[in-house]
């Protein structure tokens, strides 16, 4: 197979696709619980200490890392396509890719850093 002329798009599409799954199924749970249900008293608030204790578990951190990373790449890809097509910026594709995926990488690194420094 002449894979040479094939697009490298699969990698960003893969991140986008998996990110879409996380953004659709998992992110809303966090927003619902920590953004709405706990502050509004619709569900018993686990409080700071319990949430903090949960964060001590490496598995929680790993989960948050995966969630945040994929969601960032999902957003980056969506942003790139929206800007290039809806705003007619196809000619700036390389710059857009650089800014969007670069942003996702910066966000991911920031997430790793935050997850690493929380003690």
């Amino acid at each position, binding site marked *: *197979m*002449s*894979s*040479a*002329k*094939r*697009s*490298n*798009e*699969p*990698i960003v*599409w*893969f991140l986008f*696709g998996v990110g879409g799954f996380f953004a659709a199924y998992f992110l809303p749970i966090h927003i619902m619980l920590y953004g709405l249900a706990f502050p509004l008293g619709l569900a018993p608030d686990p409080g700071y200490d319990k949430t903090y204790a949960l964060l001590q578990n490496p598995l929680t951190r790993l989960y948050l890392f995966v969630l945040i990373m994929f969601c960032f790449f999902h957003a980056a890809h969506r942003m790139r*396509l929206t800007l290039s*097509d809806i705003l*007619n910026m*196809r000619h700036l594709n390389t710059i857009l890719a650089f800014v969007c995926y670069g942003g996702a990488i910066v966000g991911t690194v920031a997430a790793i850093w935050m997850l690493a420094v929380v003690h």
Partner: protein
Amino acid sequence: MADTIILEVERFHPERDTEPSYQSFEVPLRADWMVLDALNFIKDQLDGSLAFRWSCRMGICGSCGMTINGVPKLTCETLLMDFAPGPVRVGPLDHFPVVKDLVVEMDDFMAKLQKVRPWIVRKDDFKPQREFIQTPAQLEAFHQFSLCINCTLCYAACPVSGLDSNFIGPAAIALAHRYNLDSRDQGQEDRLDIISQHEGIWDCTVVGECSTVCPKGVDPSLAIQQYKLTATKEWFKSFLLPRGKN
């Protein structure tokens, strides 16, 4: 209700006009008339110079696609009554060069269609002595994609095909997928080389309009997304096992 309706028809004569313009015609509003019947009335009774394509009048040949009030539709399947009291705007399909009035140039689409090899490809010298047996499940796998009539409404509806004329486009990819899913076919690899290029599936941003406008219930968007999955698997495979037959 009025017994006539105004049809605003886009006119363009390549040797005379630089820009298309609209011409209004008053036609009878009959309960059983399709938009195509109104166009034929214009051609027969009012202005014989109007150019448009049609053939079967039953949603099979795929030649009567036009833009009706901004939406790509088969004129032979679109009731005039649905637009009462009017006016109804009829134009050529978007994203195609106009030959004259409502007739568009299909060459580019035909070339793209050829490229994806939409026929059964065999790699062996298989010479069937009798019918090739397929189970209902094997038929079901590709059946919906085989219903395409090449009307190109999906190209007119797809914003990406308007932005990038190199995009292979919904129907051609859906047809490639139709043969890939056929248990008799062995041409998947050849097609993947064409389809997995940037101008193939990767140009698609999942707008989904192709599947919305398709008059035959084909879901080209689904075909493209399924193909993306296949291409991604192949990409990872060739990345992990880079021994390919380049």
